[in-house]
């Protein structure tokens, strides 16, 4: 199987089939990541489309010694952050909140709320790790922070969630 970076090198030359393969590989995990990040399905879908548009448009600027996954998630994360900043009224997000599926237990819903309420810096590492399966070194590329910081943020995120769930 061709690596993401090999495919991306082909995309840079205009290979549409290579782009199609990358879309197949990454659309679902990217959508799950954006969905949890934005907490809003419609926003996540828009951002997903925009992410692929940026990837296609910026294909020529992709350097083969980069990791595609880090590059793609950095684009997605930056778009999500920009969109979030543009929303002046924070409540807009809450109003559009996806309602929890009825089968879900109380604890699960509480914990999901806690994940949503985590500070952005902690939430980013948690979501990149869980939905993108990223290693610490990949996250340092996406978030432009040192390896040790990634580790400690992940640790803190888990600890906070655990403390929050113990108190309830």
């Amino acid at each position: 199987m061709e690596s993401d970076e090999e495919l991306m090198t082909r995309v840079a030359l205009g290979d549409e089939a290579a782009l199609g393969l990358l879309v197949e590989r990454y659309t679902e995990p990217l959508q799950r990541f954006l969905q949890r990040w934005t907490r809003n399905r419609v926003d996540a879908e828009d951002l997903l489309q925009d992410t692929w548009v940026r990837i296609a448009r910026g294909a020529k600027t992709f350097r083969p010694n980069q990791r595609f996954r880090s590059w793609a998630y950095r684009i997605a994360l930056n778009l999500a952050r920009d969109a979030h900043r543009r929303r002046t009224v924070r409540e807009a997000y809450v109003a559009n909140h996806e309602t929890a599926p009825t089968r879900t237990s109380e604890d699960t819903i509480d914990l999901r709320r806690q994940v949503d309420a985590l500070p952005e810096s902690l939430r980013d590492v948690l979501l990149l790790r869980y939905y993108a399966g990223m290693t610490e070194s990949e996250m340092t590329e996406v978030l432009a922070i040192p390896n040790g910081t990634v580790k400690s943020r992940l640790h803190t995120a888990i600890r906070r969630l655990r403390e929050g769930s113990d108190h309830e």
Partner: protein
Amino acid sequence: MNRLCEETQDRLSDAALDQRTPDPIDREHAEACDACAQHRNFLHTLRSALDDVSRVPALPMRRVQDRATRVLRAAQSPAPFGKRLLRVVGLALLPLPFVIAYAIGIAKGASQLLDSILPQSALIWLGMIYFSTLAIGIGLVYAALPFAVAQRRSIERNSESP
């Protein structure tokens, strides 16, 4: 919490975030230890909280693919000839005022120098030759631009088609 529990819980967390089952040794420990069992339960709830999102219907892949492909195609095709020529001519016009100012400066200097030696009519004639040669030179440079742009485009097109 002792060191063993702390390390076990870290490994349990790693396994949960990697969406895999923990190692047997950690599982055994968690079965015998209340603190780690609690942590495991918490991680279980965390996973179901995060997995909720996977129940969201996926966006039709075709739609994502089509749009990305259109953008890729647009990004690959060279800019239209007229637009590119305009850009090149615009750039080439930037130094023109300096060239003209420089040429006028030279002509003024020469006329001051030759004023006492040559008659007025000879000076006018020399001036006309100087400026017309300059105008033809500049004209040729600008006239070559469309050909240069066309040449560049055809090179780009040939290198794109395999």
